[in-house]
């Protein structure tokens, strides 16, 4: 226990100490799993494309969404019970979303970078990966795309989490809002993981610049929504 008092960004410190450790541990296990799975697939000359896509795209975004929910359901209560204000929460929770999604994007990009080393290893055993080879020059773009996508998913988690923190009815109404928030990332992934949205998402055929602009607008609107939603939110007793 420390006697030093954190005067600036205390909630951000709490959130990062809880979520970053969890993320790093999960990444280590996840990376090991991917290495084992892809090595087996390459060894058997199977197609690694779908499983890689599932592991590297779907899992992290749902994880970040869950951590967004947790930031509200667990830490907003702790934050308020220690005499902190709702206003402080919004800024620090959004900063946390930015940093955590950045860290997650960095770890995923590091995973892609490791693939180069793996291909050299496969060559030693005369195995050949059927997955398309990634150009190292595109790694910054991979990082940027993942960062933006994961940020949107985590913000969606914050918004839906806040809805349910307020009341079950608000929670249910916030689910479509959450879907709108993650829409740019769904469009950029050609609607992978949300088939119920239909083909119109793919038919939009938006370019990276347009997706970036839409994402920026949605992020600003989400920040405003969070700020407005957290204002006056009651902290109910567990019996309510």
């Amino acid at each position, binding site marked *: *226990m*420390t006697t030093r008092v954190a005067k600036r960004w205390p*909630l951000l410190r709490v959130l990062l100490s809880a979520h970053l450790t969890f993320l790093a541990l999960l990444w280590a296990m996840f990376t090991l799993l991917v290495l084992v799975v892809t090595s087996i697939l390459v060894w058997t000359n199977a197609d690694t494309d779908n499983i890689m896509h599932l592991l590297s795209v779907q899992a992290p975004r749902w994880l970040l969404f869950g951590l967004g929910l947790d930031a509200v359901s667990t830490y907003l*209560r*702790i934050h308020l019970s*220690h*005499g902190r204000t709702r206003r402080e929460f919004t800024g620090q929770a959004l900063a946390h979303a930015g940093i955590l999604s950045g860290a997650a994007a960095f770890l995923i990009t590091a995973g892609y970078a490791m693939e180069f080393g793996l291909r050299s290893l496969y060559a030693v055993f005369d195995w050949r990966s059927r997955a398309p080879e990634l150009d190292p020059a595109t790694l910054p773009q991979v990082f940027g795309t993942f960062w933006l996508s994961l940020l949107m998913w985590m913000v969606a988690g914050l918004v839906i989490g806040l809805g349910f923190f307020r009341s079950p009815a608000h929670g249910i109404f916030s689910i479509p809002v959450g879907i709108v928030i993650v829409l740019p990332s769904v469009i950029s992934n050609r609607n992978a993981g949300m088939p119920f949205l239909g083909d119109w998402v793919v038919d939009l055929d938006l370019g990276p610049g347009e997706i970036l602009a839409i994402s920026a607008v949605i992020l600003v609107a989400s920040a405003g929504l969070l700020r407005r939603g957290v204002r006056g939110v*009651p902290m109910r007793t567990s019996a309510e």
Partner: protein
Amino acid sequence: MSMVVEVDQLTLRYHDVTALDEVSCTLTGGKIYGLLGRNGSGKTSLLSVLAGYREHTDGQVRIGGLPVFDNAEVTSRVCLVRGSGDATQNSLKVADVLEFAAILRTSWDSDYAAELVELFSLPLNKTVGSLSHGRRSALGIVIGLASRTPLTMFDESYLGLDAPTRYKFYDAVLAEAMAQPRTIILSTHLIEEVSALFEEVLILDDGKLVLHEEAETLRASGCAVTGDAEVVDRFVDGLRVLGEKRLGRTKSAMVYGDLDAEQRAGASAAGLDLGPLALQDLFVHLTEPGDPS
């Protein structure tokens, strides 16, 4: 350091339920207050408004002259522990809960927290969810006391605690109030067990404040008449009796209202003992449904 709590015509509604109905009171601070009331009387609602957990519907609440809701200057100096505490989440380890408190609470005293952890024998490496109900309550008490906030409130924080641990809690509250004078509000149903700590008492009934008085004045507002049952019955005839207890031939009757010198002398001559009024009997009387007083 203590803060004056000013509540003026405070009303709190949840949809069509009025939890607090034009409650007004002033707590001058630096004392231990007892907040009493039956289930659903509005105790938790009042404390939640004072801690900024909820925004009130009408009226005014000021602590240290400042509005409370979402005002960091005030809420950083207020701590409310409801039941086993809102800062104790089942998935977290006890050590993490205390570490987060040290980061988030500017007035947190880690050394005192460590003392209390030892006093209540709390396991630091276990998760909150794996603790018994009593130990979770004890953890809430640690958070409340070690917060060292000028206004600290415990809302039924004794739930699940065994009697020896409850006495440790009361001793710790008393020792803390003497060592670091601050305003402490205890909301409880175990009135007789805690009443010796109270300096002032507030009683809520159906969302209204029905009494706010110094504990000594309340205890002096009547007396317990104890002695032979027949003699007690004769003595209290015509007086306002709040409650009675009987053990064999011995009876104790709680009488509301001052006894004059002649009545006291008569009691003494009849071999009756006169003791202080039990707060619990007064509380039951004041909150009895349909009681005109």
